[in-house]
């Protein structure tokens, strides 16, 4: 039996796979000589905005990392606001949150090893002196763990506060503050901000791992 968090995460994944495949097919069939209309224009604008943001961090390598980062952002944006339709938030389960930090750790380390080659990566990690190598290794580990725990803490606190408000007053009265104050702040506001923050931190740490110091400046 799946936990409700896992169940809603699977629902989001299936929904996004179907929707994004349909949108991608529609965008592939577009005529480049005509202006884009309707919701497709919004999708193209959104992807273009994020591509420009990623391009400022990665320079010429942006095309490798942009699909991964934007996919993670879209999944998190849907996962953090899913409780508006009655499903439980996936990230308020510690297992899913820690799997997000495992994902960040593996992404950063593997792409740094592949792009920078292992010898240069070792040189990067022992950058001021060899004595600081263990400290740098702990730093690499703790940033990834903190990224998952941040999502977990924020979304769990949002869920707990919503439940507390629901139980504070009789259900007929408490539906008003929960619907107009708690859900807009803790689900839409904090959820989208946390999705953007996870995306932004993954972008920055991945860029720091992948590029040498001359390329960053």
């Amino acid at each position: 039996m799946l936990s409700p968090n896992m169940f809603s995460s699977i629902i989001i994944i299936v929904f996004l796979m179907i929707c994004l495949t349909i949108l991608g097919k529609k965008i592939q069939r577009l005529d480049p000589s005509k202006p884009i209309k309707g919701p497709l224009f919004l999708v193209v604008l959104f992807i273009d905005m994020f591509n420009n943001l990623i391009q400022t961090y990665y320079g010429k390598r942006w095309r490798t990392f942009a699909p991964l980062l934007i996919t993670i952002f879209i999944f998190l944006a849907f996962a953090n606001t899913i409780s508006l339709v009655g499903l439980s938030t996936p990230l308020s389960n510690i297992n899913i949150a820690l799997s997000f930090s495992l994902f960040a750790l593996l992404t950063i380390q593997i792409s740094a090893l592949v792009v920078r080659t292992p010898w240069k990566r070792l040189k990067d990690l022992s950058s001021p002196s060899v004595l600081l190598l263990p400290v740098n290794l702990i730093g690499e580990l703790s940033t990834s763990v903190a990224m998952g725990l941040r999502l977990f803490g924020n979304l769990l606190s949002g869920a707990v506060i919503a439940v507390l408000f629901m139980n504070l007053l009789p259900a007929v009265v408490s539906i008003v503050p929960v619907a107009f104050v708690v859900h807009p702040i803790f689900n839409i506001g904090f959820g989208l901000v946390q999705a953007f923050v996870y995306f932004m931190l993954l972008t920055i740490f991945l860029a720091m791992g992948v590029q040498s110091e001359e390329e960053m400046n």
Partner: protein
Amino acid sequence: MLLLAEAVYNADFISGLALLGAGIAMIGGLGSGIGQGFAAGKAAEAVGRQPEASGKITTTMLVGQAMAETTGLYSLIIAFVLIFTT
């Protein structure tokens, strides 16, 4: 004295102390609150000095505030662990 020796083995006593510890752990929220306010104040100063860069300043401020929030969230997680596991 007998009362105290009995109280140590009392489950209610232990869970009461755990709840007290959860309350004390949330003092850690103080630091992250001060840090976030400091970041917001500096961002307001920066917008006042250079209004055309306000978009970039807001993004940087949000990311920095989320970083500062992490320590407060650690104390929140510790408080939850103390409440729900004892």
